[in-house]
């Protein structure tokens, strides 16, 4: 099953393991290479991912395949409007013991797993959506005054359907900010679509082989996560990430200090209501570290930061109505900011 080395992985081990998981996922998922890489990057830095895509682009399949490849416990919650927080976190129920005594016992909800898929998370009420916040941020769940720890690695993937907005509750900014990356799944091109057809309509289904043993999967993934944290970032790279984040903040915002007002771009001022939070800078550096390891380096470079910039910053930028009317999306803002900062304009 697994020949991946355990204990103290090296840079080469990380890249090899990463590529192998990618290969297993792509046995079922045709295309979406960038999305899969970002998904795994978020996994190895301990972040969570928001997946946005039109129906039928493989959102749920992608998450399922990931769970199979990692050989970790996997749960799926279909978010609906009548879903309650206790349905997610779990609740205390009265159970009869062997001696006939009845007592409250905690029944863990679906959040108690390693990989959680929240399908169409924007269909649940904000109250239910918020039930995930504590689990995502602190890896713990509090029910009736009792806190229950979640076992690492803990990885939440939530999907969004951008076209069926009727009866949905857009995620609040605070919850959006807790997702490390927002991954967009686009329609496959003609070649990919042909391969999807041939691989899914035949008599045999492609099987996904687990990369890790079930008993050691969590431990090895945690070791790889620690390795990612060991990747070095020069002060110049940290400054670069900070400048990128500050450049997404509009000059006219009352939350922007005078010093930050020196860093601005006209497009940002015109279209952005709120820029990225400091979590955006953390996401930039962490994602860049994974990318550097995949490139065989123990240090991050500008290219690594820019590689993950759209995934890390786009969902943290709130656009105004002018952007909506002009057809500007957050990814364009991020790309503009990268050009401005890299070119020394800012």
């Amino acid at each position, binding site marked *: 099953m697994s020949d991946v080395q355990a204990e*103290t992985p*090296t*840079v080469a081990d990380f890249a090899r393991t990463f590529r192998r998981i990618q290969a297993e996922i792509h046995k079922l998922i045709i295309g979406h290479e960038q999305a899969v890489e970002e998904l795994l990057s978020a996994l190895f830095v301990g972040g969570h991912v928001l997946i946005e895509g039109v129906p039928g682009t493989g959102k749920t399949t992608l998450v399922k395949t990931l769970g199979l490849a990692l050989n970790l416990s996997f749960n799926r919650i279909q978010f609906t409007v009548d879903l309650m927080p206790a349905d997610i976190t779990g609740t205390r129920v009265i159970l009869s013991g062997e001696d006939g005594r009845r007592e409250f016992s905690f029944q863990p909800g679906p959040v108690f797993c390693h990989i959680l898929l929240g399908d169409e998370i924007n269909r649940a009420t904000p109250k239910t959506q918020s039930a995930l916040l504590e689990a995502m941020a602190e890896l713990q769940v509090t029910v009736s005054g009792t806190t229950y720890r979640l076992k690492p690695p803990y990885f939440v993937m939530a999907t969004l359907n951008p076209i069926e907005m009727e009866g949905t509750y857009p995620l609040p900014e605070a919850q959006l900010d807790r997702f490390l990356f927002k991954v967009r799944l686009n329609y496959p091109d003609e070649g990919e679509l042909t391969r999807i057809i041939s691989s899914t309509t035949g008599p045999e289904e492609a099987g996904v082989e687990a990369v890790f043993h079930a008993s050691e999967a969590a431990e090895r993934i945690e070791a790889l996560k620690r*390795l990612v944290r*060991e*990747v*070095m*970032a*020069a*002060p*110049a*790279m940290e400054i670069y990430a900070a400048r990128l984040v500050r450049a997404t903040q509009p000059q006219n915002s009352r939350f922007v200090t005078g010093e930050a007002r020196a860093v601005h771009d006209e497009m940002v001022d015109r279209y952005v209501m709120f820029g990225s939070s400091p979590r955006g800078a953390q996401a930039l550096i962490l994602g860049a570290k994974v990318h*550097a390891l995949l*490139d*065989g*380096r*123990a*240090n*991050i*470079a*500008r*290219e*690594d930061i820019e590689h993950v910039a759209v995934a890390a910053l786009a969902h943290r930028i709130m656009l105004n109505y002018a952007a909506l009317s002009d057809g500007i999306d957050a990814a364009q803002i991020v790309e503009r900011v990268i050009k401005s900062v890299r070119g020394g304009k800012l």
Partner: protein
Amino acid sequence: MSFSSQDRRADEKLGRILGRVASVRTRLNSLALQHAIFYTLAIAIAGGAVVFAGAYLLSPLAFLVGTSVLAIIGCAGIASAVGAGWRMRVSRVRAAAIADDRAELKGRLSTIVALANHQVRGSLWPYLVEDTLGYQDQFAAARIERRRVSRAIYPLAAAFVLAALAIPISKIKHPPQIAPGGGQTDMTVDLDDLDLRPADPGDESGMQVTADAATMRRLGDKLARLGAAGGEAGGNSLNQLVNRARDMAGHLQSKLTGRQTASKQRLNLRLADAGGDQDQNEIHRAPETQKNRRGDVAGQFEQDQPKSNHELDLPREDDLRQPSSGPSPGVDESGAEADSGKDNPGNRDNGATDRKIQQSGENGGGGGAAHGIGADPDTLFGAPAASKLGTEGFEIAIEARPVDHGAKGAGRAYVAPRVRAPLSLNQAPDEPVARAAVPADDRTTIRRVFER
């Protein structure tokens, strides 16, 4: 292998990397220094060359203004060059970043240099050092920056070329400004033709003016009138400053061009009072000739800028009485024609005027048979037995120099030659284009528009 030996080897590898970064930095800083020095030298040399050439080609006032502007530009340029060189110098971190970019090392060197002094480097530090050392050939100083000499050497070379060209340019472009009749220090001028103005203070040159008593009285009256009219202007401190600056520019110009200001001779200017018996003389003077005479002579003395290396080399008074043995350098063709009028007594005064015109070298060629060279100043206003010059006169130092306007290009205007190019064989002769008639309906509208 012991732990300490591993550490020592790791430090050796790190030292090799940092040594290469240091060599890159040294080379980059050397180029920055060269940039500053070469540009500074280039500006200084080019500026000096331009000043040198300007000393030959420009008048003192233009030289003063040009040198001042050039000094300002030069200082700004030197400050800019030094500032640019200062900005070009790099720190060790910056040198590592440049090496990263040029060798496409993706931040390896920058990270090593930035974290080399950190106590806690992480478990991947040895991997980073080893990985970076594998690229050591790519970040050698010679590959990061191939140039040992800054490109600023080209402006410096251009400045040297300019300096080398300044000497021949100053000789080629500078026409001989030697007044005709070398060694002549005496000349005669009509009092009415003098354009009098206060001399520059500090001007060591001057002129000894001699005339008969009546002429000197008239000159005194004229000076008094001028003094009353220009008293305020003459006492203006700004004018004094300008004169002083111009004088300094003249001295600098003289130093640069090697003129010997100390050996200036005084010019003996003999005034002739044509106004005393002007009515009689005007009868004999053709209007055209008088116009030429007044205009030319006045123009001769209006120029207050020294133009000649030998500005005081004028013919002596005795020489003026004798016909010239040949045309002097400043004499044009009319001088030869003037010889033919030597024997015409009715044109003697005109001859004197023409003699002055010859000295100025600016005769417009309007002479002819009526112009005689036999102008004897002693007989211009009466019998030779009249009172001799200097017996009752006094000396007034005024600024009047024979100058040559050739450097200004004001001598002769360029007349374009008439060239009639033949038409092409296939070209039809020009025909006027028929004017289109304005439609009757539009005439009212057009008229209304243009009447606005």
